[in-house]
Protein backbone atom coordinates (compact mmCIF):
# COMPACT_ATOMS: atom_id res chain seq x y z
CA UNK A 1 0.00 0.00 0.00
CA UNK A 2 1.26 3.41 -0.91
CA UNK A 3 0.13 6.48 0.93
CA UNK A 4 1.67 9.93 1.27
CA UNK A 5 4.07 10.05 4.16
CA UNK A 6 4.78 6.32 4.03
CA UNK A 7 8.51 6.86 3.86
CA UNK A 8 8.37 9.23 6.79
CA UNK A 9 6.44 6.77 8.91
CA UNK A 10 8.73 3.90 8.00
CA UNK A 11 11.69 6.05 8.96
CA UNK A 12 10.11 6.67 12.34
CA UNK A 13 9.62 2.94 12.74
CA UNK A 14 13.31 2.31 12.06
CA UNK A 15 14.49 4.86 14.59
CA UNK A 16 12.01 3.57 17.15
CA UNK A 17 13.34 0.06 16.68
CA UNK A 18 16.88 1.27 17.19
CA UNK A 19 15.87 3.32 20.21
CA UNK A 20 14.26 0.37 21.94
CA UNK A 21 16.80 -2.13 20.67
CA UNK A 22 19.72 -0.20 22.07
CA UNK A 23 18.40 -0.87 25.56
CA UNK A 24 18.06 -4.60 25.05
CA UNK A 25 20.86 -5.60 22.71
CA UNK A 26 24.25 -4.60 23.93
CA UNK A 27 25.86 -5.34 20.57
CA UNK A 28 23.92 -2.52 18.96
CA UNK A 29 26.01 -0.02 20.84
CA UNK A 30 29.41 0.44 19.28
CA UNK A 31 30.62 2.97 21.82
CA UNK A 32 33.31 1.89 24.25
CA UNK A 33 33.29 3.61 27.62
CA UNK A 34 36.91 4.49 27.20
CA UNK A 35 38.76 5.02 30.44
CA UNK A 36 36.91 2.13 32.08
CA UNK A 37 36.78 -0.20 29.11
CA UNK A 38 39.54 -0.69 26.63
CA UNK A 39 39.49 -2.58 23.40
CA UNK A 40 42.00 -5.38 23.04
CA UNK A 41 44.01 -4.19 20.06
CA UNK A 42 44.63 -6.79 17.37
CA UNK A 43 48.06 -8.35 17.00
CA UNK A 44 48.81 -6.36 13.86
CA UNK A 45 47.77 -3.07 15.37
CA UNK A 46 50.46 -0.45 15.33
CA UNK A 47 51.11 2.95 16.77
CA UNK A 48 54.69 4.15 17.19
CA UNK A 49 58.02 2.34 16.90
CA UNK A 50 60.17 1.19 19.80
CA UNK A 51 63.51 -0.54 20.11
CA UNK A 52 63.86 -4.09 21.36
CA UNK A 53 66.62 -5.23 23.67
CA UNK A 54 67.23 -8.81 24.68
CA UNK A 55 68.89 -9.00 28.08
CA UNK A 56 69.64 -5.51 29.29
CA UNK A 57 68.98 -2.00 27.93
CA UNK A 58 72.72 -1.56 27.45
CA UNK A 59 72.69 -4.06 24.67
CA UNK A 60 69.93 -3.23 22.23
CA UNK A 61 69.53 -5.23 19.09
CA UNK A 62 69.96 -2.00 17.16
CA UNK A 63 73.35 -1.61 15.58
CA UNK A 64 72.82 2.02 14.55
CA UNK A 65 73.08 1.07 10.89
CA UNK A 66 70.84 4.00 9.97
CA UNK A 67 68.83 2.10 7.38
CA UNK A 68 65.59 3.14 9.03
CA UNK A 69 66.79 6.72 9.24
CA UNK A 70 67.30 6.75 5.50
CA UNK A 71 64.11 4.90 4.61
CA UNK A 72 61.80 6.74 6.95
CA UNK A 73 59.39 8.66 4.68
CA UNK A 74 58.81 11.66 6.94
CA UNK A 75 62.38 11.58 8.23
CA UNK A 76 61.50 11.51 11.90
CA UNK A 77 64.34 9.23 13.06
CA UNK A 78 67.70 10.59 14.19
CA UNK A 79 70.53 8.20 15.05
CA UNK A 80 74.04 8.75 16.31
CA UNK A 81 76.28 5.72 16.55
CA UNK A 82 78.16 5.14 19.76
CA UNK A 83 81.90 5.15 19.51
CA UNK A 84 84.57 4.27 22.03
CA UNK A 85 87.39 6.57 23.05
CA UNK A 86 89.45 5.76 20.03
CA UNK A 87 86.58 6.52 17.67
CA UNK A 88 85.89 2.95 16.85
CA UNK A 89 82.20 2.28 16.15
CA UNK A 90 80.55 0.24 18.88
CA UNK A 91 77.62 -1.04 16.81
CA UNK A 92 75.05 0.48 19.07
CA UNK A 93 73.21 3.80 19.10
CA UNK A 94 74.38 6.62 21.30
CA UNK A 95 71.31 8.66 20.44
CA UNK A 96 68.13 7.35 18.86
CA UNK A 97 65.36 9.94 18.65
CA UNK A 98 61.95 9.55 17.10
CA UNK A 99 59.79 12.63 16.85
CA UNK A 100 56.34 11.10 17.18
CA UNK A 101 54.71 14.36 16.21
CA UNK A 102 56.23 13.76 12.79
CA UNK A 103 56.07 9.97 12.67
CA UNK A 104 53.16 8.75 10.58
CA UNK A 105 53.13 5.18 11.89
CA UNK A 106 53.80 3.66 8.49
CA UNK A 107 55.88 0.73 9.74
CA UNK A 108 58.45 1.05 6.96
CA UNK A 109 61.29 1.29 9.51
CA UNK A 110 60.18 -2.05 10.92
CA UNK A 111 60.09 -3.66 7.52
CA UNK A 112 63.53 -2.51 6.42
CA UNK A 113 65.33 -3.28 9.68
CA UNK A 114 67.68 -6.22 9.08
CA UNK A 115 68.20 -6.89 12.81
CA UNK A 116 64.56 -7.21 14.02
CA UNK A 117 65.41 -4.38 16.35
CA UNK A 118 62.74 -1.74 15.73
CA UNK A 119 59.13 -2.81 16.24
CA UNK A 120 55.71 -1.20 16.32
CA UNK A 121 54.15 -0.62 19.69
CA UNK A 122 50.39 -0.70 20.27
CA UNK A 123 50.29 1.83 23.08
CA UNK A 124 47.83 4.48 21.94
CA UNK A 125 47.99 6.69 25.01
CA UNK A 126 50.89 8.90 24.16
CA UNK A 127 49.33 12.32 24.59
CA UNK A 128 51.52 14.92 26.20
CA UNK A 129 50.99 18.47 27.28
CA UNK A 130 53.91 19.93 25.36
CA UNK A 131 53.98 20.20 21.62
CA UNK A 132 57.64 19.89 20.84
CA UNK A 133 60.10 18.35 23.25
CA UNK A 134 57.56 16.17 25.02
CA UNK A 135 56.78 14.37 21.82
CA UNK A 136 60.36 13.48 20.98
CA UNK A 137 61.05 9.96 22.16
CA UNK A 138 64.68 9.55 23.26
CA UNK A 139 66.64 6.32 23.44
CA UNK A 140 65.64 5.47 27.05
CA UNK A 141 61.96 5.99 26.21
CA UNK A 142 62.24 3.82 23.16
CA UNK A 143 64.07 0.87 24.61
CA UNK A 144 61.73 -1.90 25.65
CA UNK A 145 62.46 -5.49 26.48
CA UNK A 146 61.78 -8.45 24.29
CA UNK A 147 59.40 -9.69 26.98
CA UNK A 148 57.26 -6.65 26.40
CA UNK A 149 57.27 -7.38 22.70
CA UNK A 150 56.28 -10.98 23.37
CA UNK A 151 53.49 -9.71 25.54
CA UNK A 152 51.94 -7.30 23.03
CA UNK A 153 52.48 -9.37 19.90
CA UNK A 154 52.83 -13.02 20.90
CA UNK A 155 52.60 -14.58 17.45
CA UNK A 156 54.99 -12.25 15.74
CA UNK A 157 57.42 -12.27 18.63
CA UNK A 158 57.56 -16.05 18.53
CA UNK A 159 58.32 -15.91 14.80
CA UNK A 160 61.02 -13.33 15.36
CA UNK A 161 62.52 -15.29 18.24
CA UNK A 162 62.58 -18.45 16.17
CA UNK A 163 64.16 -16.63 13.29
CA UNK A 164 66.79 -15.00 15.48
CA UNK A 165 67.48 -18.32 17.19
CA UNK A 166 67.88 -20.04 13.87
CA UNK A 167 70.15 -17.25 12.68
CA UNK A 168 72.14 -17.40 15.88
CA UNK A 169 72.39 -21.18 15.62
CA UNK A 170 73.39 -20.94 12.01
CA UNK A 171 75.93 -18.34 12.96
CA UNK A 172 77.14 -20.45 15.85
CA UNK A 173 77.24 -23.51 13.65
CA UNK A 174 79.11 -21.54 11.04
CA UNK A 175 81.44 -20.22 13.68
CA UNK A 176 81.87 -23.66 15.12
CA UNK A 177 82.44 -25.00 11.67
CA UNK A 178 84.94 -22.24 11.05
CA UNK A 179 86.60 -22.95 14.35
CA UNK A 180 86.56 -26.64 13.60
CA UNK A 181 87.92 -25.97 10.16
CA UNK A 182 90.58 -23.73 11.59
CA UNK A 183 91.36 -26.34 14.17
CA UNK A 184 91.43 -28.99 11.55
CA UNK A 185 93.59 -26.77 9.46
CA UNK A 186 95.76 -26.05 12.46
CA UNK A 187 95.78 -29.72 13.24
CA UNK A 188 96.61 -30.50 9.68
CA UNK A 189 99.24 -27.84 9.36
CA UNK A 190 101.70 -28.69 12.15
CA UNK A 191 102.48 -32.12 10.82
CA UNK A 192 103.12 -30.48 7.50
CA UNK A 193 105.22 -27.87 9.30
CA UNK A 194 106.87 -30.48 11.32
CA UNK A 195 107.44 -32.32 8.18
CA UNK A 196 109.39 -29.37 6.89
Amino acid at each position, binding site marked *: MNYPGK*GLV*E*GLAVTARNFVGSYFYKDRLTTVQYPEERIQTPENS*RTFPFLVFDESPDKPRCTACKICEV*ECPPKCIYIVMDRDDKGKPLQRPKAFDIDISVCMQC*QICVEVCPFESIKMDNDYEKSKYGRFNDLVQRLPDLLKSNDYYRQIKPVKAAEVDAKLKAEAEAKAAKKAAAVAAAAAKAAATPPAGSAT
Partner: protein
Amino acid sequence: MIAAPSTIPAGGAITTQLLEISIGPQHPSTHGVFRMDVVLDGEVVRALKPVVGYLHRNHEQLAEKMSWLGSMPYTDRLDYFNSMSNNWAYALAVEKLAGIKVPERAEYIRVIMAELSRLQNHASAIGFLLQDCGAWGTPLLYAFKEREKILDFFETVSGSRMMCNYFRFGGVRVDLNDEMLAMARKIVAEFPKFLDEFEKLMTTNEVVLARCQRVGILPKELAIAGSISGPVARASGVEYDIRKVDKYGVYGQLEFGVPVGAVGDVYDRYYIRVLEMRESVKILQQVLRDIPAGPVQAVEVKLRGFKIPAGDGYGRVEGAKGELGFYLVSEGGPKPYRYHIRPPSFINLTVLEDMCVGHKVADAIIILGSIDIVLGEVDR
Protein backbone atom coordinates in the same frame (compact mmCIF):
# COMPACT_ATOMS: atom_id res chain seq x y z
CA MET B 1 33.79 34.68 -13.01
CA ILE B 2 32.11 36.36 -10.13
CA ALA B 3 30.95 39.89 -10.68
CA ALA B 4 31.11 42.25 -7.78
CA PRO B 5 27.76 42.48 -6.03
CA SER B 6 25.78 44.84 -8.15
CA THR B 7 22.25 46.03 -8.39
CA ILE B 8 20.30 44.01 -10.88
CA PRO B 9 16.67 44.20 -11.74
CA ALA B 10 14.83 41.15 -10.46
CA GLY B 11 11.33 41.51 -11.75
CA GLY B 12 9.35 44.69 -12.04
CA ALA B 13 10.56 47.95 -10.66
CA ILE B 14 12.03 46.47 -7.49
CA THR B 15 15.78 46.10 -7.64
CA THR B 16 17.61 43.78 -5.32
CA GLN B 17 21.23 43.46 -4.39
CA LEU B 18 23.27 40.33 -4.86
CA LEU B 19 24.76 38.91 -1.73
CA GLU B 20 28.23 37.43 -1.82
CA ILE B 21 28.89 34.98 0.94
CA SER B 22 31.87 32.81 1.63
CA ILE B 23 30.84 29.30 2.59
CA GLY B 24 33.85 27.74 4.21
CA PRO B 25 36.64 26.99 4.97
CA GLN B 26 35.30 26.62 8.51
CA HIS B 27 31.73 25.96 7.48
CA PRO B 28 30.26 22.82 9.06
CA SER B 29 29.32 21.10 5.82
CA THR B 30 32.08 21.77 3.34
CA HIS B 31 33.65 18.39 4.10
CA GLY B 32 36.94 19.78 5.27
CA VAL B 33 38.67 23.03 4.52
CA PHE B 34 36.93 23.78 1.27
CA ARG B 35 35.55 27.18 0.41
CA MET B 36 32.78 28.22 -1.92
CA ASP B 37 32.46 31.84 -2.91
CA VAL B 38 28.76 32.04 -3.55
CA VAL B 39 26.85 34.93 -5.06
CA LEU B 40 23.26 34.79 -3.94
CA ASP B 41 20.17 36.49 -5.19
CA GLY B 42 17.97 36.06 -2.17
CA GLU B 43 18.53 32.37 -1.55
CA VAL B 44 19.23 31.47 -5.18
CA VAL B 45 22.80 30.76 -6.22
CA ARG B 46 23.82 32.95 -9.14
CA ALA B 47 27.53 32.12 -9.21
CA LEU B 48 29.77 29.81 -7.27
CA LYS B 49 33.52 29.70 -7.21
CA PRO B 50 35.22 26.76 -5.51
CA VAL B 51 38.37 27.77 -3.69
CA VAL B 52 40.82 24.99 -2.90
CA GLY B 53 44.29 24.78 -1.47
CA TYR B 54 43.79 25.11 2.26
CA LEU B 55 45.07 21.58 2.78
CA HIS B 56 47.86 21.59 0.22
CA ARG B 57 50.68 19.37 1.46
CA ASN B 58 52.99 19.24 -1.50
CA HIS B 59 52.37 15.55 -1.94
CA GLU B 60 53.63 15.18 -5.50
CA GLN B 61 56.80 17.14 -4.88
CA LEU B 62 57.50 15.17 -1.72
CA ALA B 63 57.13 11.91 -3.59
CA GLU B 64 59.72 12.97 -6.13
CA LYS B 65 62.26 13.27 -3.31
CA MET B 66 61.49 9.90 -1.81
CA SER B 67 62.05 6.27 -2.57
CA TRP B 68 59.37 4.42 -4.51
CA LEU B 69 58.19 2.68 -1.37
CA GLY B 70 58.35 5.83 0.72
CA SER B 71 55.39 7.34 -1.12
CA MET B 72 53.15 4.41 -0.31
CA PRO B 73 52.16 5.60 3.19
CA TYR B 74 51.64 9.08 1.78
CA THR B 75 49.04 7.79 -0.67
CA ASP B 76 47.01 6.70 2.37
CA ARG B 77 46.62 10.36 3.20
CA LEU B 78 45.23 11.38 -0.17
CA ASP B 79 41.69 10.20 0.23
CA TYR B 80 41.85 9.11 3.82
CA PHE B 81 38.60 7.21 3.50
CA ASN B 82 40.03 4.86 0.89
CA SER B 83 43.66 4.29 1.70
CA MET B 84 43.38 0.75 0.31
CA SER B 85 42.35 1.78 -3.19
CA ASN B 86 44.88 4.62 -3.18
CA ASN B 87 47.55 2.07 -2.33
CA TRP B 88 46.35 -0.13 -5.12
CA ALA B 89 46.45 2.61 -7.75
CA TYR B 90 50.01 3.50 -6.84
CA ALA B 91 51.12 -0.11 -6.64
CA LEU B 92 49.46 -0.77 -9.99
CA ALA B 93 51.35 2.11 -11.62
CA VAL B 94 54.67 0.96 -10.21
CA GLU B 95 54.01 -2.67 -11.14
CA LYS B 96 53.17 -1.62 -14.68
CA LEU B 97 56.37 0.37 -14.91
CA ALA B 98 58.56 -2.31 -13.39
CA GLY B 99 56.77 -5.23 -15.01
CA ILE B 100 56.04 -7.08 -11.79
CA LYS B 101 53.61 -9.96 -11.74
CA VAL B 102 51.36 -10.14 -8.70
CA PRO B 103 50.52 -13.56 -7.18
CA GLU B 104 46.90 -14.58 -7.51
CA ARG B 105 46.09 -14.69 -3.83
CA ALA B 106 47.38 -11.17 -3.48
CA GLU B 107 45.09 -10.06 -6.32
CA TYR B 108 42.12 -11.56 -4.51
CA ILE B 109 43.12 -9.90 -1.26
CA ARG B 110 43.43 -6.61 -3.08
CA VAL B 111 39.89 -6.95 -4.41
CA ILE B 112 38.61 -7.70 -0.91
CA MET B 113 40.31 -4.63 0.47
CA ALA B 114 39.23 -2.34 -2.36
CA GLU B 115 35.62 -3.44 -2.24
CA LEU B 116 35.44 -3.19 1.54
CA SER B 117 36.82 0.31 1.39
CA ARG B 118 34.25 1.10 -1.31
CA LEU B 119 31.53 -0.15 1.01
CA GLN B 120 32.62 1.98 3.92
CA ASN B 121 33.27 4.99 1.73
CA HIS B 122 29.86 4.87 0.07
CA ALA B 123 28.13 4.22 3.36
CA SER B 124 29.67 7.24 4.97
CA ALA B 125 29.28 9.33 1.80
CA ILE B 126 25.53 8.88 1.76
CA GLY B 127 25.50 9.36 5.51
CA PHE B 128 27.24 12.69 5.12
CA LEU B 129 24.94 13.61 2.26
CA LEU B 130 21.89 13.06 4.44
CA GLN B 131 23.58 14.92 7.24
CA ASP B 132 23.87 17.84 4.85
CA CYS B 133 20.16 17.44 4.14
CA GLY B 134 19.63 18.09 7.82
CA ALA B 135 18.98 14.62 9.21
CA TRP B 136 20.30 15.07 12.69
CA GLY B 137 23.17 12.60 12.61
CA THR B 138 21.09 9.43 12.55
CA PRO B 139 21.85 8.10 9.04
CA LEU B 140 25.48 9.14 9.39
CA LEU B 141 25.88 7.29 12.63
CA TYR B 142 24.17 4.18 11.27
CA ALA B 143 26.62 4.27 8.39
CA PHE B 144 29.53 4.86 10.73
CA LYS B 145 28.51 1.94 12.88
CA GLU B 146 28.85 -0.30 9.85
CA ARG B 147 32.03 1.43 8.75
CA GLU B 148 33.47 0.75 12.17
CA LYS B 149 33.31 -3.00 11.58
CA ILE B 150 35.16 -2.65 8.30
CA LEU B 151 37.77 -0.43 9.92
CA ASP B 152 38.20 -3.03 12.65
CA PHE B 153 38.90 -5.54 9.91
CA PHE B 154 41.43 -3.21 8.34
CA GLU B 155 43.11 -2.79 11.69
CA THR B 156 43.26 -6.52 12.24
CA VAL B 157 44.85 -7.04 8.86
CA SER B 158 47.05 -4.05 8.26
CA GLY B 159 47.53 -2.63 11.73
CA SER B 160 45.84 0.68 11.16
CA ARG B 161 42.24 1.66 10.72
CA MET B 162 42.57 4.33 8.10
CA MET B 163 46.23 4.76 7.18
CA CYS B 164 46.61 1.17 6.16
CA ASN B 165 49.81 1.23 4.09
CA TYR B 166 48.98 -2.33 3.23
CA PHE B 167 49.88 -2.82 -0.41
CA ARG B 168 53.39 -3.51 -1.57
CA PHE B 169 54.76 -3.61 -5.09
CA GLY B 170 54.02 -7.10 -6.26
CA GLY B 171 51.56 -8.05 -3.55
CA VAL B 172 50.36 -7.14 -0.11
CA ARG B 173 52.16 -6.84 3.16
CA VAL B 174 50.33 -9.34 5.35
CA ASP B 175 48.59 -12.52 4.41
CA LEU B 176 45.01 -13.08 5.51
CA ASN B 177 44.64 -15.98 7.89
CA ASP B 178 41.43 -17.94 8.43
CA GLU B 179 40.25 -15.78 11.31
CA MET B 180 40.57 -12.67 9.21
CA LEU B 181 38.70 -14.27 6.33
CA ALA B 182 35.95 -15.31 8.71
CA MET B 183 35.76 -11.77 9.97
CA ALA B 184 35.44 -10.46 6.42
CA ARG B 185 32.73 -12.99 5.63
CA LYS B 186 30.79 -11.91 8.69
CA ILE B 187 30.99 -8.26 7.68
CA VAL B 188 29.85 -9.05 4.16
CA ALA B 189 26.99 -11.18 5.42
CA GLU B 190 25.76 -8.44 7.73
CA PHE B 191 26.12 -5.56 5.33
CA PRO B 192 22.90 -6.09 3.31
CA LYS B 193 20.91 -5.94 6.56
CA PHE B 194 22.35 -2.52 7.26
CA LEU B 195 21.58 -1.42 3.71
CA ASP B 196 17.96 -2.54 3.99
CA GLU B 197 17.51 -0.68 7.23
CA PHE B 198 19.20 2.40 5.87
CA GLU B 199 17.06 2.39 2.77
CA LYS B 200 13.93 2.02 4.83
CA LEU B 201 14.99 4.98 6.88
CA MET B 202 15.90 7.25 4.03
CA THR B 203 15.40 6.13 0.44
CA THR B 204 11.62 6.54 0.27
CA ASN B 205 11.50 9.33 2.80
CA GLU B 206 9.41 12.08 1.22
CA VAL B 207 11.64 14.80 2.56
CA VAL B 208 14.70 13.17 1.04
CA LEU B 209 12.90 12.76 -2.26
CA ALA B 210 11.77 16.36 -2.26
CA ARG B 211 15.23 17.59 -1.37
CA CYS B 212 17.24 15.41 -3.72
CA GLN B 213 15.19 14.78 -6.81
CA ARG B 214 15.72 17.14 -9.72
CA VAL B 215 18.36 19.04 -7.83
CA GLY B 216 21.84 19.61 -9.21
CA ILE B 217 21.36 17.79 -12.49
CA LEU B 218 24.60 16.98 -14.27
CA PRO B 219 23.92 16.29 -17.96
CA LYS B 220 25.65 13.32 -19.52
CA GLU B 221 27.46 15.47 -22.08
CA LEU B 222 28.85 17.76 -19.40
CA ALA B 223 29.92 14.79 -17.31
CA ILE B 224 31.88 13.40 -20.25
CA ALA B 225 33.28 16.78 -21.26
CA GLY B 226 34.33 17.47 -17.70
CA SER B 227 36.11 14.12 -17.38
CA ILE B 228 33.87 13.21 -14.47
CA SER B 229 34.21 9.66 -13.25
CA GLY B 230 32.93 7.34 -10.60
CA PRO B 231 29.40 7.27 -9.19
CA VAL B 232 28.85 10.91 -10.14
CA ALA B 233 29.40 10.12 -13.83
CA ARG B 234 27.42 6.88 -13.68
CA ALA B 235 24.48 8.69 -12.06
CA SER B 236 24.40 10.90 -15.15
CA GLY B 237 24.23 7.87 -17.42
CA VAL B 238 27.88 7.52 -18.40
CA GLU B 239 28.63 3.83 -18.73
CA TYR B 240 32.17 3.94 -17.48
CA ASP B 241 33.71 1.83 -14.79
CA ILE B 242 37.41 1.09 -14.86
CA ARG B 243 36.81 -2.28 -13.24
CA LYS B 244 34.96 -3.18 -16.45
CA VAL B 245 37.11 -1.18 -18.87
CA ASP B 246 40.59 -2.17 -17.70
CA LYS B 247 39.68 -5.43 -15.96
CA TYR B 248 42.65 -4.90 -13.66
CA GLY B 249 43.34 -7.36 -10.91
CA VAL B 250 40.86 -10.22 -11.07
CA TYR B 251 37.87 -8.09 -11.91
CA GLY B 252 37.73 -9.74 -15.33
CA GLN B 253 36.79 -13.05 -13.71
CA LEU B 254 34.13 -11.66 -11.40
CA GLU B 255 30.47 -11.22 -12.10
CA PHE B 256 29.02 -7.89 -11.16
CA GLY B 257 26.87 -5.15 -12.63
CA VAL B 258 27.54 -1.46 -12.79
CA PRO B 259 24.42 0.54 -12.02
CA VAL B 260 23.83 3.52 -14.28
CA GLY B 261 21.34 6.31 -13.66
CA ALA B 262 19.43 8.42 -16.10
CA VAL B 263 18.71 11.82 -14.59
CA GLY B 264 21.96 12.69 -12.90
CA ASP B 265 20.55 14.57 -9.94
CA VAL B 266 21.49 14.32 -6.30
CA TYR B 267 19.03 11.49 -5.74
CA ASP B 268 20.60 9.42 -8.52
CA ARG B 269 24.03 10.02 -7.09
CA TYR B 270 22.71 8.88 -3.73
CA TYR B 271 20.95 5.81 -5.03
CA ILE B 272 23.74 4.75 -7.41
CA ARG B 273 25.96 4.52 -4.35
CA VAL B 274 23.44 2.30 -2.60
CA LEU B 275 23.23 0.03 -5.64
CA GLU B 276 27.01 -0.04 -5.99
CA MET B 277 27.27 -1.19 -2.41
CA ARG B 278 24.95 -4.06 -3.21
CA GLU B 279 27.14 -4.98 -6.18
CA SER B 280 30.25 -4.73 -4.03
CA VAL B 281 28.69 -7.19 -1.61
CA LYS B 282 28.19 -9.58 -4.54
CA ILE B 283 31.83 -9.18 -5.60
CA LEU B 284 33.00 -9.78 -2.05
CA GLN B 285 30.93 -12.93 -1.73
CA GLN B 286 32.52 -14.33 -4.90
CA VAL B 287 36.03 -13.34 -3.91
CA LEU B 288 35.75 -14.66 -0.40
CA ARG B 289 34.44 -17.93 -1.79
CA ASP B 290 37.10 -18.39 -4.45
CA ILE B 291 40.22 -17.04 -2.80
CA PRO B 292 43.10 -19.36 -3.68
CA ALA B 293 46.04 -20.33 -1.51
CA GLY B 294 49.54 -19.24 -2.32
CA PRO B 295 52.06 -16.50 -1.66
CA VAL B 296 50.97 -12.93 -1.30
CA GLN B 297 54.12 -11.19 -2.39
CA ALA B 298 56.15 -11.44 -5.58
CA VAL B 299 59.59 -12.60 -4.54
CA GLU B 300 61.63 -10.52 -6.96
CA VAL B 301 60.64 -7.22 -5.32
CA LYS B 302 63.14 -5.91 -2.84
CA LEU B 303 62.08 -3.62 -0.06
CA ARG B 304 65.26 -1.60 -0.01
CA GLY B 305 67.08 -0.19 -2.98
CA PHE B 306 64.19 -0.91 -5.27
CA LYS B 307 64.86 0.54 -8.68
CA ILE B 308 62.64 0.78 -11.70
CA PRO B 309 63.79 0.83 -15.32
CA ALA B 310 63.45 4.17 -17.08
CA GLY B 311 60.08 4.87 -18.63
CA ASP B 312 56.67 6.14 -17.75
CA GLY B 313 53.48 4.47 -16.76
CA TYR B 314 49.94 5.29 -15.74
CA GLY B 315 48.10 3.07 -13.31
CA ARG B 316 44.48 3.64 -12.48
CA VAL B 317 41.80 2.01 -10.42
CA GLU B 318 38.11 2.59 -9.93
CA GLY B 319 38.30 4.22 -6.54
CA ALA B 320 35.17 4.78 -4.53
CA LYS B 321 35.05 8.36 -5.73
CA GLY B 322 36.05 7.79 -9.34
CA GLU B 323 39.08 7.18 -11.49
CA LEU B 324 42.16 7.43 -9.34
CA GLY B 325 45.31 7.42 -11.46
CA PHE B 326 49.01 7.71 -10.83
CA TYR B 327 51.29 8.83 -13.63
CA LEU B 328 54.89 7.99 -12.92
CA VAL B 329 58.07 8.76 -14.83
CA SER B 330 61.18 6.84 -13.88
CA GLU B 331 64.76 7.64 -14.78
CA GLY B 332 65.88 4.25 -13.65
CA GLY B 333 66.77 5.42 -10.16
CA PRO B 334 65.36 4.80 -6.71
CA LYS B 335 63.06 7.80 -6.92
CA PRO B 336 60.34 8.81 -9.36
CA TYR B 337 61.32 11.60 -11.72
CA ARG B 338 57.76 12.74 -12.02
CA TYR B 339 54.87 11.66 -9.88
CA HIS B 340 51.43 12.91 -10.77
CA ILE B 341 48.03 12.04 -9.40
CA ARG B 342 44.69 12.22 -11.12
CA PRO B 343 42.43 12.73 -8.11
CA PRO B 344 38.76 11.97 -8.73
CA SER B 345 37.49 14.32 -6.05
CA PHE B 346 39.27 17.29 -7.54
CA ILE B 347 38.15 16.66 -11.09
CA ASN B 348 34.57 15.90 -10.06
CA LEU B 349 34.56 19.20 -8.22
CA THR B 350 35.10 21.18 -11.42
CA VAL B 351 31.44 20.88 -12.41
CA LEU B 352 30.19 22.11 -9.06
CA GLU B 353 29.23 25.55 -10.31
CA ASP B 354 27.36 24.17 -13.32
CA MET B 355 25.30 22.00 -11.02
CA CYS B 356 24.60 24.64 -8.41
CA VAL B 357 23.67 27.77 -10.36
CA GLY B 358 19.95 28.43 -10.21
CA HIS B 359 19.39 26.33 -7.13
CA LYS B 360 18.96 27.42 -3.54
CA VAL B 361 21.87 27.74 -1.16
CA ALA B 362 20.64 24.67 0.71
CA ASP B 363 20.84 22.73 -2.55
CA ALA B 364 24.40 23.86 -3.15
CA ILE B 365 25.33 22.21 0.14
CA ILE B 366 23.78 18.86 -0.73
CA ILE B 367 25.13 19.00 -4.28
CA LEU B 368 28.59 19.36 -2.80
CA GLY B 369 27.78 16.50 -0.47
CA SER B 370 26.61 14.35 -3.36
CA ILE B 371 29.92 14.71 -5.19
CA ASP B 372 31.60 13.17 -2.16
CA ILE B 373 34.92 14.94 -1.96
CA VAL B 374 37.77 14.47 0.44
CA LEU B 375 39.94 17.50 0.79
CA GLY B 376 43.08 15.49 1.31
CA GLU B 377 42.73 14.37 -2.26
CA VAL B 378 41.51 17.67 -3.70
CA ASP B 379 44.38 19.75 -2.37
CA ARG B 380 47.02 17.02 -2.11
